[in-house]
């Protein structure tokens, strides 16, 4: 019989795994952003589990992880917002979908030439 904590623990492991896979393998920025969120959720879930099992074991609940998870969620939300904003702006500039796996070759090309 699987206990609730183990079940949540396993779920968080699956989420982390999925997130890692997506973050590394998916070339599209939006999918990377989503993968980051999956990964983050996995970690927060794990934190929730730990509130039951870790130092808080035996207590009704450990308040510290809950406080930290909430803060973490806010941070992850802000990160997502920033990433999406950048992505939208990038789309406006280039007018096409880009991938992040190979970088823009113009970065390594010589600077724009104003010299005759």
């Amino acid at each position, binding site marked *: 019989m699987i206990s609730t904590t183990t079940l949540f623990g396993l779920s968080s492991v699956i989420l982390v795994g999925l997130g890692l896979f997506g973050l590394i393998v998916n070339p599209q920025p939006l999918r990377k952003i989503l993968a980051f969120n999956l990964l983050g959720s996995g*970690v927060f879930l794990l934190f929730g589990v730990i509130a039951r099992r870790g130092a808080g074991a035996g207590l009704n609940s450990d308040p510290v992880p809950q406080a930290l998870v909430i803060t973490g969620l806010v941070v992850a939300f802000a990160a997502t917002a920033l990433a999406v904003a950048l992505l939208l702006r990038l789309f406006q500039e280039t007018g096409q979908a880009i991938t992040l796996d190979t970088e823009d070759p113009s970065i390594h090309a010589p600077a724009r030439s104003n010299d005759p």
Partner: protein
Amino acid sequence: MMQDPSNLLVLALVLPVAGLLLALVVGGRYAGRIALWLMPVGLAIAVMLVVSVIRADDALVYDLGGWMPPLGVALRADGLSAIFILTTVAVIGATGIFARTEFRTLPGQPETRTSLTFWALLLALWGALNLVFLSNDLFSLFVALELLTFSAIPLVCLDGRAGTLAAGLRYLLFALFGSVLYLLGAVLLYGAYGTLDIGLLSGLVRPEPVAWGAAALMTVGLMAKTALFPLHFWLPPAHAGAPAAASAVLSALVIKASLFLIVRLWFDAMPALMNPTAAQVLATLGAAAILFGSVLALRQARLKLLIAYSTVAQIGYLFLIFPLIVRPESGSFAAADLYTELAATVVSTSAWSGGVLQAVSHAFAKAAMFMAAGLIAQSLGHDRIADLSSIGRALPITVLAFALAGMSLMGLPPSGGFAAKWLLLTATIETGQWWWALVILGGGLLTGGYLFRVLAPALFGSRQSVTLRAPVARYREVVVLALALCSVLLGFVRLGAFDLVQIGRLAKAGMGLP
């Protein structure tokens, strides 16, 4: 107020944040002025902090809201924090003066986006850095690092071009990847030991699988944010694409923050895990960074990319301190009395001082170099290294500053870089690891090589006159020169002032180390 010097810790955090809020309220027209007025105050606070730490000869601690850890969150300033806070305010202040006119709204003109963004982000960056240096709690440190990343990335793509936006996005996503790994590690630690306070952890962490996993996750996550080879791919386009003032802060300070945290983790939070082989692994990555970064810098066509790759290389030196602090042969942790074992393990204070000196002098030198490159690019309209011939004639002060900063990077006397190398080399000898000496010396030769590519044509070019597209304000050149001089003059204060590094170190205070 001044009776208790630990109030300075709060002041150091409140000042930039207050400035940020004020700037957001009053708008871009006055944001620059607010930032520039706050910087001398910040400098005074940082100096008082350093003096207080020296006078107390111990770390200053401030428990927020009067709550003690593990429930509360503490701020703590030891010698290391104090040095970095002072460096931060010095570099940020110089950046502010350098960028004064660049991001200014002229009277009568409509307010521009960058004039507000730049100053607000600079203040945010300053606050976040101070938070990193003062936090004593792994979760606050996580928040501080995120704040830092969020304020650094918009600075990268301030000009809004597609190239820099893509660079910024890559930087952001990779940094987030690193943050999540760090957070995962912190979560594991909390699960095992029930606290995230560094001081408490240092006494609790035992060598066991959960701690190893946490340490590995956190270290690698932070390495990604520090751009240690081979996780450096985001750095060159981001640092080379940003405006000069932003590149200076990014390369000089931002990457040092995550490195600072790695040092905190290994030597303060989890000293029991300090493992000689792991230290050798970190240093090997550092050596690879020196080799790859320098060779790539040798081959860049653009000045800013060259400097960015030079940062990749210089980060490598900072990772060499790990094995130099831990002696390789006495690495067994199986002994019953862990702390006596540890006391025998931490031997070399030269490595500590050398590492800190390297970080600080690199901060000044690299800031100077990026700003010098910015002035050159602005006045010539390009930064192609091949076309820098005789630029020394047109911009003597800028090129002099670049050369002085280069001296420090190369480790020529009497620069701070020289003193740092001297101390690191001494540490290699004290700990009997001559192979790292070869890396340090060879890296100096490669550094000389890529700086030669810039300086030889700039100083000895055959062009008799160089026409500038845009004039360069003298005061901006002087700021760059002042930064470069700081990095050179640091070489004179070695030995003495860097005893400060040892003040309030947890391992020292808590465990009676020599």
